[in-house]
């Protein structure tokens, strides 16, 4: 399985500011996903990012709030914009080698607290 790293691992931010989370994979992957996991809760898919195309957002998530970049096959960023305390959560990057791959592997997550 791929080795996935995320930066930062955690951050405390003030409301109204933005934070960019980086996801780096040690091998080329077609699909990268961004999830949100509120403390003690399940995982919710924010968007799917294919290299070379616009990210596809799930219902309830919009590009203006969560812009995503996918410049190459090993890297992606998620920005949480104009943050509010409700954005406090764990943000997880996940990867799959192909568009129709079964296995998805997760990074360690970024724990965000908005004050």
């Amino acid at each position, binding site marked *: 399985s791929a080795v996935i790293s995320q930066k930062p691992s955690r951050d405390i931010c003030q409301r109204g500011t933005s934070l960019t989370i980086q996801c780096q994979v040690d091998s080329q992957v077609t699909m990268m996903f961004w999830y949100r996991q509120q403390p003690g809760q399940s995982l919710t898919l924010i968007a799917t990012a294919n290299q070379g195309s616009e990210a596809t957002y799930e219902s309830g998530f919009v590009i203006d709030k969560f812009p995503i970049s996918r410049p190459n096959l090993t890297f992606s960023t998620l920005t949480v914009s104009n943050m509010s305390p409700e954005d406090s959560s764990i943000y997880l990057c996940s990867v799959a080698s192909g568009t129709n791959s*079964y296995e998805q592997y*997760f990074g360690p*997550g970024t724990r965000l607290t908005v004050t």
Partner: protein
Amino acid sequence: QQQVKQSPQSLIVQKGGISIINCAYENTAFDYFPWYQQFPGKGPALLIAIRPDVSEKKEGRFTISFNKSAKQFSLHIMDSQPGDSATYFCAARVYTGTASKLTFGTGTRLQVTL
């Protein structure tokens, strides 16, 4: 509705016992059913998975039982150990034509006591 229902929410098992977590789904387009294990402060780790053409899959102490007609699947952890204490998520995959999408259950917090 693409939903996966998971139970119980929490589970306490004695060391050496069997832990059983259940999931149910509605969408017959789901074609792959993984289980993830998550320790505090870590990302979910793929533990074991099954496809619907198989009724059971075993890997070490972990077994998935799959009942396609009932649209249910379960994780059995045999000889449960304190190191198994974690949160377990079932999930189900659908292929949209352009990407795989996982839908997760609500999670089960397992505690294995001595």
